[in-house]
């Protein structure tokens, strides 16, 4: 019957299709940039042609590659984070920052920037501490049984975020010199500071998280029928909720500390993929990882190549393209 093949079939289809798209995006992103050499020369280097241009080779492997891979990791994490929070809170407006992670890490990062620390490890470390502090605060505020009451968690998060925005505005108003530009770029999300070491560290943290979340994907399906019902269907609801909450928050904190507050992806990628492939999380988890990754690679590519001079924050592009595309798909699916 249809259902048996359909889960595995859809899963394979999603993996093959989105891996293809991701690979294509990676290839284009690696071979495009502000250097004078064209795409042809870049492609030749990527596919291992000898006697190539040494400068271009360095640009591709040491500048573009870490950045492109960082975009994949960050895009994947934010999309997956949004998906998990939408399931846990059973709220379609949930996104990875909804529990206040963004506010906390932003305060940390801004303090770091104001102190004149380097982007890595200084600012990243401050941001991570900030987001962990808010996570602990949220968990304490909604501790015990209330963690299962979705609105308690949601409202705590919204309040923490509101409070943090006030602090952020205050800190920004104190800053006047060049650091202001730094702060604004960080708040909008920006991948320009990627290097291979930090991207590698991030990958080591994130990839195990992705795998664990995939094993919880059917549990997320069951959670959507209601927490009490899910429990009577054999799911240890409280354990699953806590594990997913903590794991996702840590994952998002780690990426945000490094890349700043890239908005929109986490909210919209899960919806977009759900519109295409339905609500089954066993399909959506890999779809968010691959699709979210590919989407941010493309957005970051546009962010660094569109402006005549310099670049703009990738966070500007994510919503600029994503919002209209999403509305178009939504209209089409409602018909």
């Amino acid at each position, binding site marked *: 019957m249809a259902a048996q093949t359909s889960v595995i079939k859809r899963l394979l289809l999603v993996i093959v299709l989105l891996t293809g798209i991701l690979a294509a995006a990676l290839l284009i992103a690696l071979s495009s940039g502000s250097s004078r050499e064209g795409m042809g020369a870049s492609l030749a280097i990527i596919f291992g042609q000898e006697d190539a241009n040494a400068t271009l080779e360095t640009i591709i492997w040491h500048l573009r590659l870490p950045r492109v891979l960082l975009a994949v990791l960050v895009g994947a994490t934010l999309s997956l984070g949004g998906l998990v929070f939408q399931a846990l809170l059973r709220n379609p407006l949930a996104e990875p920052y909804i529990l206040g992670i963004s506010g906390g890490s932003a305060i940390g990062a801004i303090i770091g920037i104001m102190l004149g620390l380097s982007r890595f490890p200084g600012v990243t470390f401050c941001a991570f501490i900030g987001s962990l502090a808010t996570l602990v605060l949220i968990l304490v505020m909604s501790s015990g049984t209330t963690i299962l009451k979705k609105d308690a968690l949601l409202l705590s998060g919204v309040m923490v975020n509101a409070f943090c925005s006030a602090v952020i505005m205050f800190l920004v108003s104190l800053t006047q010199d060049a650091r202001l530009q730094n702060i604004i770029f960080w708040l909008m999300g920006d991948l320009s500071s990627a290097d291979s070491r930090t991207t590698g560290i991030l990958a080591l943290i994130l990839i195990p998280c992705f795998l664990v979340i995939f094993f919880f994907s*059917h549990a997320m399906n069951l959670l959507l029928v209601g927490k009490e019902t899910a429990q009577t269907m054999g799911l240890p609801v409280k354990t699953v909720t806590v594990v997913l909450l903590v794991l996702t928050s840590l994952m998002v904190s780690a990426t945000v500390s490094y890349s700043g507050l890239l908005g929109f992806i986490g909210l919209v990628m899960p919806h977009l993929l759900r519109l295409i492939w339905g609500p089954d999380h066993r399909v959506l988890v890999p779809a968010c990882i691959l699709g979210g990754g590919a989407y941010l690679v493309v957005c970051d590519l546009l962010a660094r190549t569109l402006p005549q001079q310099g670049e703009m924050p990738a966070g500007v592009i994510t919503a600029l393209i994503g919002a209209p595309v999403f509305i178009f798909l939504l209209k089409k699916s409602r018909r």
Partner: protein
Amino acid sequence: MKTAFAINNLSHAFGTHAVLKNLSFSITGGDFFIIIGPNGSGKTTLMKLMAGVLKTGTDRIRIFERDIRNFSYKSLARRIAYVPQQLEVGFPFTVEEAVLMGRAPHQNVLGIPQDRDIETARQAMVITEVAHLADRKLDQLSGGEQQRVFIARALSQEPEIILLDEPTASLDISHQIRVMDLMEKLKIEKKVTVVMVSHDVNLAAMYGDRLLLLRSGEIASLGLPHEVLTFQNLEATYGCKVLVDENPLGKSPRVTPVPQKFLV
């Protein structure tokens, strides 16, 4: 038949508010057992305790002679299925996907359906008459159809006991009878023990093997329908005048609440 549920001195409180006070009763396996009582009398709380959703002390609830606390979530889910009062439709799963979720206690963590899961889910959809809706989205169904899908999901757990919290509350009379007939069919054909919370005393009278009447968290009456549904019991519990006569169908008691205008 064995005892499906043995409830022993069960109490429950929310904060300082005692909802259930020292209940003791048992439910025979294979019975259609219906719990009735006014709003706030503790019916839903009792049902949630019996489903294992709310926790209780040692040896307060025994299921087939084993303490409910000694079951893992999964092993409890293979014995008891629960259809809650408020159905969550959530994100738009298809009917078949939703029914297959009931197989979770029999599956591994990813729940990839095997032939046996598909077959059980299909049978559950056939018996609940939703097989023709298999590919429809849950949120496109009527209330009565949704109710039957959730019952199908409960059935695909292959439970020995099914608990339903007011399954007929929002349905028209035709759908009410269909749900009740379905439960009776399950009881007879699959030997499932059915425990239901209901507000409809007349349906309870026609279908229940035994009834439990709750009043402020205590047992007001327990027994056969004609023993429980007396005008004395009902007037004392609900605080309104009722007329009890005999239903021409099947000789069960028939309860008519009496409007003010007929009281002189």
